[in-house]
Structure formats: structure tokens, C-alpha cells
């Protein structure tokens, strides 16, 4: 592997880099930083909810925290982490020398810190930051929002711009840069899930841009998109938002499916069960994601035909998702299983994500949703799919590929400790929220009736424990970067994939001559 491209050192290396591995590293560190910031905000929320009554923050700031926590975790932590994985892994998995458009790749990343700065700066502005929830429904976000909302709007524009360029790059890379013999149906499942995710991103991020642009003109230039007096409709905002928002949740979970589909076969020492059905199931989920959005708004007053249609369409998603869960289970069936840290996280993902999937089915049925809507049951549901789903898969993936990235094995004992601390605390954190929601505790409130005290107390204790456990993760990652047992090229016991054919750590440039895939 020749080093014929010049590589500046110091800060310039990271600012100007066109290397997919450098950019992947930047994405992952950015995501982790935002994960800690968003996590700190969650700690504020749980501290306020530890006891009934008002004790830590005032209600407006509480609402600001729930809003910013959601926005930062979705746009700052989970999505960039997934793009970081794509940058590191897609070229190595398909035998490409780099991403298809390396300069644009740099730009996709380097917009993010600016967007995050713009978003977080709203906290320090007069009138406070956005406090209307991460879904920023009109008219809360238009007529009744603080001035800082305009900065929030442009932060969303920037984030969308970055995501669209990143997605274009990933599609061009996958479709145009595969090594000879790497046919579509030979691609690792992680690559497949990202190809479909990138399509979703390009399709819906512009719609989000449209939604915030309508907000911008309603707020500043007197348009009537969300103003009933002018013939518009606040509910229009919810339609446009969720047309983006529902595919968005699959944007966060499909790459997680991909990561888990790489890890489970390795530690079950079997090929992935039902590869083709996994691909088709992913595509089916992506298709369905476009036609189910109004299940987020069952209580808004839709015609009955709408309620029925969106219920039926929504529960259909259970079919391809179940195909995946059964395939992961069948992959493990009669395998020679071992439980290294990545596998622990992956198995926990399958189990806990499925819980989130089942509560999703409950919420997807309109008459049941009338009861659960806007309660803590919803909060519990989407944290099971996003934390024990997407975030668990991200952590699993970090442990799985960290030896390839750093050239060192991570500390297995600490990794397992991190897993057990997180897996137990996350359930203490989120499981009681199901009961709170079923008992009628609304979401997005800083105070609550006395009968909700015990479960909130449990949830907060679990929250603090889960948050602190992630500092252990930071320590393990840094320790692994700085040293440790040397990793072999294969790292694991005969894993499948081109990334395991190159040395650990992966050289700065890989596959400048395309490998032959049989």
C-alpha cells in the first residue's frame, strides 16, 4: 500500500482530509460528543422527574431540555454515528479505494459541527432555546416560539444538507465502486441496509427542509401554511413533518439492522440465515415507511378512513421486521456461539428491539393509540427502539470493528462490564415508563401526580446509572486506541467480509488495486 497521497499533519489533516477512514473517525467522535451532550440533557430531565414537584429547573427550561435532547440525539448522535460506520466500512467491505466523491465527503462532515453550534447556541439566546418538542409542531414553533427558532430552522437546513450529500456519496460509492465480482447480492448486509437508508435520506431530508422553510416564512414573512384563518392548517405541518419523520426512524434503525447482521453470524459461526430475505425485508420496510406517517397523528382528528388505512399499513411493517428477527434467531440456532462483547450487545439488541417493536404494534392500532398517545408509553416505546435498538447496535459495532480501526483489542473484561451495567440500567430506566404511560402519565411535563412517584424514581435511578456507564465506554475506547493486545487481521474467529482480509489497523489507503471477489 503506497502512501502517494500527501497527508497533512495536525489539525489540517482533520480539516482538509479526503480520506474515508479519517472522515469516518471524525463522524464517530462527533457523534460520541453529541451523545454525551444529549445525554447530559437527559440527566437534567431525569433529575427533575426524580420526585414529584418542581425542584431542579423551571418548566420552560425543562421543555427546552426534552426538545434539545431529542434533536441532538437524533441528528447529532445516532445519524452521524451511522454515517461514520458507513464511511469506515462501506469502501472496505466492497473493495473500493475510498468513497466515490471524497471532497464532498469532507464537506458532509464539516457542516455538522457548524450546524450543531448553531443549534446549541439557541440555548444562550434571549427567550431561550426551542421548547416545542423535537417534532416542533406548528403553531408552537411558529406563532408561539422564541426568536431563537430561526436559528434552529437553519441548523436543520444545514443538517439536512449534510445528510443529503452524505447519502449521495454512499449511493454513488455502493453502485459505482464495487470490486469486480462483488455483485449486489454478494454485498454484506450492512452495505445493503446503508444503500436503502441513503435512498430514504435523499427522499425525505428535502421534505424536512420544506417543512422548516414553511415555518420560516410563516414566522417571518406572513405566509399562511399553518394558519387556519388564511386557509392553511396546523395539521399540515404534522403531515409534512411525519412524511419525513417516519422514514427518519428507519434511517436510524436500518443501518443498525445491518451492523447486527454482520456481528451475529461471526459469533454464531454460521452464515447469516436467509440473506436474500433480509435484503428484501429491508427494502419492504423502506417502502412501507413512506405510507404510514399519519399513525403519529391518530388523535389529531383524521377521517375514519384515514385512521383505518394508517392502522392497517402500519401493522404490515411487522411482517418484514419479523422476517429479520426470525432470521437473526435462526442464524444463532445450533451455532457454535460465543459471547464476546459485540455479540452480547447484538443479542441484547435483538431481544430489546423486539420489545420496542411490539409496543410499536400496540401504538400502531388507532383505537389503542387514542389511549396511549402522548403518554410515557410512547416515550418507552421509542427509547426501546432507539436506545436499546440503534444505540446498542452502534456500541456493538464499535466493539466489533474497534480492533480493525485501532489495531488493538479492547479490554474484554471492561467491555462486558460496560454491557451488563448498560443492559440492566437501561431496562430500569425505560421499562417502568411503560407502566407510567399506561397509567396515564403524559410526556413532556416537568411535574406529575403523586401516584407516578415510584416508577419515576426507578426510572431516574436507572437513567443516572445508564448515563454514567457510558463514561466507562469512553474510557474503554480511549484505552483501546492508546494500546492493548495486538489485533490480528482477522480479529475474530474466521469472520466473513473483505475488511478482515486487510491488516489491523487498516492502512490509510486500502484496495487501491481492487480485490477479486469470487
Amino acid at each position, binding site marked *: 500500500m503506497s502512501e502517494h497521497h500527501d*497527508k497533512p499533519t495536525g489539525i*489540517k489533516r482533520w480539516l*482538509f*482530509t*479526503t480520506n474515508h477512514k479519517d472522515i469516518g473517525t471524525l463522524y464517530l467522535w462527533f457523534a460520541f460528543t453529541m451523545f454525551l451532550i444529549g445525554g447530559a440533557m437527559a440527566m437534567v430531565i431525569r433529575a427533575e422527574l426524580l420526585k414529584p414537584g418542581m425542584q431542579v429547573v423551571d418548566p420552560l427550561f425543562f421543555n427546552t431540555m426534552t426538545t434539545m435532547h431529542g434533536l441532538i440525539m437524533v441528528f447529532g448522535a445516532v445519524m452521524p454515528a451511522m454515517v461514520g460506520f458507513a464511511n469506515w466500512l462501506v469502501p472496505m467491505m466492497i*473493495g*473500493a*479505494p*475510498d468513497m466515490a*466523491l*471524497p*471532497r*464532498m465527503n*469532507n*464537506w458532509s462532515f*464539516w457542516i455538522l*459541527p*457548524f450546524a450543531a453550534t*448553531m443549534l446549541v447556541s439557541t440555548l444562550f439566546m434571549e427567550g431561550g432555546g426551542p421548547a416545542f418538542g423535537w417534532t416542533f409542531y406548528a403553531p408552537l414553533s411558529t406563532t408561539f416560539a*422564541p*426568536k431563537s*427558532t430561526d*436559528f434552529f430552522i*437553519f441548523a436543520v437546513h*444545514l443538517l439536512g444538507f449534510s445528510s*443529503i450529500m452524505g447519502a*449521495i456519496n454512499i449511493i*454513488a*460509492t455502493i453502485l*459505482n*465502486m*464495487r470490486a*469486480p465480482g*462483488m455483485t449486489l447480492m454478494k454485498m454484506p448486509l450492512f452495505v445493503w441496509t446503508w444503500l436503502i437508508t441513503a435512498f430514504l435520506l*435523499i427522499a425525505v*431530508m*428535502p*421534505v424536512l*427542509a*420544506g417543512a422548516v422553510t*414553511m415555518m420560516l*416564512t*410563516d*414566522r*417571518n*414573512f*406572513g*405566509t*399562511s401554511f399553518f*394558519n*387556519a384563518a*388564511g*386557509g*392553511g*392548517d396546523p395539521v*399540515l405541518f404534522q403531515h409534512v413533518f411525519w412524511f419525513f419523520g417516519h422514514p427518519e426512524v428507519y434511517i436510524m434503525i436500518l443501518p443498525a439492522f445491518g451492523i447486527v447482521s454482520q456481528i451475529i453470524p461471526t459469533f454464531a459461526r454460521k452464515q447469516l440465515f436467509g440473506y436474500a430475505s433480509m435484503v428484501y425485508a429491508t427494502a419492504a420496510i423502506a417502502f412501507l415507511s413512506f405510507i404510514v406517517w399519519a399513525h403519529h397523528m391518530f388523535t389529531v382528528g383524521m*377521517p375514519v378512513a384515514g385512521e383505518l388505512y394508517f392502522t392497517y399499513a402500519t401493522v404490515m411493517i411487522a411482517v418484514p421486521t419479523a422476517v429479520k428477527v426470525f432470521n437473526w434467531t435462526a442464524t444463532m440456532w445450533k451455532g457454535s456461539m460465543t459471547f464476546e462483547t459485540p455479540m452480547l450487545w447484538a443479542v441484547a439488541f435483538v431481544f430489546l428491539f423486539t420489545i420496542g417493536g411490539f409496543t410499536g404494534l400496540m401504538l400502531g392500532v388507532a383505537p389503542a393509540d387514542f389511549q396511549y398517545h402522548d403518554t410515557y408509553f410512547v416515550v418507552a416505546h421509542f427509547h426501546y427502539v432507539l436506545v436499546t435498538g440503534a444505540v446498542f447496535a452502534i456500541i456493538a459495532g464499535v466493539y466489533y470493528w474497534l480492533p480493525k480501526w485501532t489495531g488493538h483489542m479492547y479490554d474484554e473484561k471492561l467491555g462486558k462490564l460496560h454491557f451488563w451495567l448498560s443492559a440492566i440500567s437501561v431496562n430500569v430506566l425505560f421499562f417502568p415508563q411503560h407502566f407510567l404511560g399506561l397509567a396515564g402519565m403524559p410526556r413532556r411535563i416537568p411535574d406529575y401526580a403523586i401516584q407516578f412517584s415510584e416508577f419515576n424514581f426507578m426510572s431516574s435511578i436507572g437513567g443516572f446509572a445508564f448515563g454514567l456507564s457510558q463514561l466507562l465506554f469512553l474510557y474503554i475506547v480511549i484505552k483501546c486506541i492508546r494500546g492493548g493486545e495486538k489485533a490480528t487481521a482477522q480479529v475474530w474467529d474466521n469472520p466473513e467480509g473483505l475488511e478482515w482480509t486487510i491488516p489491523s489497523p487498516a492502512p490509510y489507503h486500502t*484496495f487501491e*488495486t*481492487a480485490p477479486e471477489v469470487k
Partner: protein
Amino acid sequence: MSTQAGSYYLPTPSHWPIIGSVGLFTTLFGFASALPGTPDGPVGNLGVMYVGLAIIAFMLFGWFGQVIGESESGKYNAQVDTSFRMGMVWFIFSEVMFFAAFFGALFYARQLSVPWLGGAGNNAMTNSLLWKGYAGTWPTNGPGAVGGKFEHMAAFGIPLWNTIILLTSGLTVTWAHWGLKKENRGQLIMGLFLTVALGGLFVSLQAYEYMHAYHEMGLKLTSGIYGTTFFMLTGFHGLHVTIGAIMLLVMLIRSTKGHFTAKNHFAFEAAAWYWHFVDVVWLGLFIFVYWLV
């Protein structure tokens, strides 16, 4: 896929993206700072935004200049060309989805929210309690008559001429492409010149139409949902025509400098695709915004 991965051009580290990020941030931060945050407040000082736009312009010149230089010196093989093509196609798809959001808002207002305000479906009480006497017919500025009395824009005046102009420009750009493919530089330059000129004419007529709407028809951006959807859809389209015309102008200048060969002219094709895209969007606008009122 390809067998020449070894010769795929990998650019060296570049300072252009970070300059672009600084430019975007400055532009948007400056714009947000100047915005009133209320529909009736005045827009403040836009100085910072203009600085940001200048940085973006500087970045575009530098970055595209570098890419053009690399392309003309033959560094890009067929596989790189395919990456660029895919990039442009998916970028245009993202633009389609951006317009889809605004078309969606138009259809939603026309088919659902306006009739509902007029009492359609199960909304009889909404109408009789909140908006008594409101008929809910298009075009409308809503039950609150937001923005005051207005006339709607007729299809068969300037809009029809603009349709003819844009469709003609689609032909001239294709004629230019034929010229390029058979090495007829004169035809290429003439075709591009005609296309850019037609684009300029289109934007000028639209500017005239806007002035007419504001001064003589009482039709404004603030004229309820009709004014909102009319100006936002045609306005974003006009912006895209302007961008497309600038892209084609760059192609025109490059053509006069001897850039492009009969086989190798991705940039020209990208600009032409973009032009056809704004053309198709216009047809949607002509039918749903102007014609079917």
C-alpha cells in the same frame, strides 16, 4: 463493477469544503440574526449574510475551478465520470422531493383543509361555530380573509408565454448538445446562448408578473393560502431557473474557451439535466397553480 479501481482519481486533501462550511454558517447565522421573528416586523441588517454569500461564491469558484482543471487535464476516468453522474441524478432527485413538499402543501390545502374549513366532511360544526359563512372554495385567502381582497393569476397570459419559453429552451439546450456531439462548436455556443437568453426572459417575465400581482391585483405572499402557495411554489421555481441559467452560463463560457469534447462533457449534461428538471417542475406549476383554479 469496474476493473480500473486502481486508476480512480482520489483528490488530495482540500480546504474548499471547510471554507464552504464557514460560508454557509455565516450566511445563515447572518440571515437568522436579521429576521424579525414575527410576520410584521422589519428585516434587520443583512451585512453578515452578504459576507457569508461572498465566502460561498469564493468557495464555488475555487472548488469548481479545481474540478474543471482536473477534468481538463484528463485525471478523471470513466468510473469517476459515473460517480459524478450518479451524484447529479440523486441531487436532482432531492430537489424533486423538496418541490414535492410544497406541491403536497398545495394539494392538501386545496383538497382537504380549505373544504374542511368550509364545512366539508364531518366539519360542519367547525364551519358554523368558527367560520360561519365561509364557503371553502379555491382560490382563497382563508376564512379570515388574510391579506385582503385579491385577484388570482390567470393561466393564459404571461404564464402561457413562460411555458412556451421554457419548453423552447429545452429544445435549444438539446440542439446545443447535438452540436457538441458532432463537434460543431458554433451550434453548441449558439444553442447555449439561446437557452440562457430564454431563461433570462422567463425570469424577467416572472418578475413583471410579480410586480403586476403586487401593484394591480392585490395578490401578495401574505394573501392567505393562495398567495402563500402561489409565491412559494413559483418563487422557488424561479430561483431554480436562475440557478440553472447560471449553470448554463458557466457552460457557455467554458464552451467559448474550448472546454468539452464530443465524448467527454459531463458538466454540460449535468446542467442540461438540471434545466430539464426545472422545465418539468414548471409544467406541474402551470397545471396546478395557474390552470386548474
